[in-house]
């Protein structure tokens, strides 16, 4: 691989040059592997040897015993799960839609070829995207619970805030990669900036954006299932209630319900994305 790459680049390379390049590269790679190994050793020492209280964990059979508490399904819980499951599903749907709505200005500002005033709006949109993606959904939910109170609304806002980054980043890339010709055509017909966006850019990027949104929706189902941890309703709340009452088969039941919901989402997403393309 390396030999061909070097050969094709410059003709007057001598054999010793090639050998020197390769040994230099090998030395770098060797240093990298050693560094990675040292990091692994250091991390294992810190986490598994120093920080873990092996006496508390006990022997292997004791671990198996505590795992076996989780085996089983609490059938009495299933009727109570239907409402929260629907709630989780709805939080994911509405959150994704709201995320899409607040994405529109972010896409407009964040795509280099359509941003209205580059020095200000472009960095602004990029900062918003990074902010949204780097803060975990639990933290978003905490912020929104303190702003709008407990309940599904905080969950919806958290999901929307968290989806903004991914949708806006991928969609802005799609807008940057459009075909320029329709834009020029609309410009030549005397269309203003708004008309260019509506008739030349939007039809081109719509299928891509829809695909991204469906993908994000599928992830959001999974996310909305844990927002109950900070008081934002849904299946997460039932999960923590079962956990706190030490009803371990109930915990397994809730996890299976989440699994089924995610499965439905994944199948829907798979087929609808296929239909889009």
């Amino acid at each position: 691989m390396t030999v061909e790459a070097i050969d094709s680049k410059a003709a007057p390379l001598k054999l010793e040059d090639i050998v020197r390049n390769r040994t230099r590269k090998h030395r770098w790679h060797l240093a990298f592997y050693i560094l990675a190994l040292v990091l692994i050793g250091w991390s294992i020492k810190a986490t598994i040897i120093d920080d873990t209280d092996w006496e508390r964990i006990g022997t292997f059979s004791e671990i198996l015993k505590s795992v076996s508490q989780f085996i089983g399904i609490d059938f009495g819980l299933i009727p109570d799960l239907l409402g929260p499951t629907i709630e989780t599903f709805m939080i994911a749907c509405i959150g994704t839609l709201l995320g899409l709505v607040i994405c529109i200005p972010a896409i407009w500002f964040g795509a280099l070829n359509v941003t209205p005033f580059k020095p200000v709006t472009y960095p602004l949109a990029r900062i918003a995207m990074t902010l949204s993606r780097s803060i975990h959904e639990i933290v978003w939910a905490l912020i929104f619970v303190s702003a709008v109170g407990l309940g599904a609304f905080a969950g919806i806002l958290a999901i929307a805030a968290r989806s903004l980054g991914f949708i806006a980043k991928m969609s802005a890339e799609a807008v940057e990669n459009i075909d320029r010709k329709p834009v020029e055509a609309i410009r030549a017909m005397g269309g203003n900036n708004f008309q260019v966006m509506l008739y030349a850019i939007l039809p081109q990027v719509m299928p891509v954006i829809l695909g991204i949104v469906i993908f994000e929706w599928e992830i959001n189902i999974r996310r909305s299932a844990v927002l109950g941890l900070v008081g934002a309703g849904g299946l997460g709340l039932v999960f923590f209630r079962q956990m706190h009452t030490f009803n371990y088969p109930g915990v397994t039941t809730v996890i299976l319900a989440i699994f089924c919901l995610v499965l439905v989402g994944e199948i829907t997403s798979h087929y609808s994305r296929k239909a889009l393309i």
Partner: protein
Amino acid sequence: MSQLHQMSGKSDATKREWSRFKYPQSLYKYGITLGVVLFIIYSLHYLNVDLSRLFGIFGRLGDLLANRYYPPDIEYIKDADYIGSIIETIQMAYLGALFGILISIFLGWFAAYNVSPSRRYLYPVARVVTMLFRSVHEMIWAILFVTILGFGMLPGVLALTMFSVGFAGKLFAEEIEAIHMGEVEAIRAMGGNHLQVFVYGVVPQVRVALTGIAIYTWDVAFRAATVVGFVGAGGMGWYLKRNVMQIETHRTAAILLSILILVIISEFISAWARNYVSKAK
């Protein structure tokens, strides 16, 4: 566009009003739109969401940030204990992603339909396992492991391992399913067994892509690692939880700020590393 051409051919026979969607498509299109709108309205009603609160939210959020969170308590995050927890978080993410990637290489191999060693047994099992790991959120894994193993970094590492397996396993499988089958067939024709097919036929083709995915997995696992401590699994999350519970808003703001900075740094490192790897192809 094609419809437009068709219509222009017919237009001399019948003069028709141009519409973007013709009869059956337009019915589906508007039907789906109507269904979505009805669903939204019904779910807003079901979830008891007061939409009028949406309009004041930016003002309220701004107020909240300015009055309660504003001067972040920078001294708090310079504390040695807190710096130690940051290092713990990095270690947890590193180990979790590493174990997860090691497991998901095999899982991805089993779950790729074209080279799976046994299509009847291993393929569905690997698929379902990947799905299960993916569908359970990392916080739930963390809670389960904390219940079984107690507080500390080990449950965090295991939770992140599960998370990384779910994340990377699917991407690995998709990547392996997209390879050229020529090499695989050549090695099969030479009498290579499944392991030899994987090592000599599949790995050389997907090496670069898998490295890129692995780096990205580390990045995502680090983001998850900043909060798994929330339920007692080690790292910065525990500090976050404690300060949120004690309503120490200035300290919370400082912690959020530090998380943000770290995540941005890790994103830069991961983007640089992925770029380097794809160039070294």
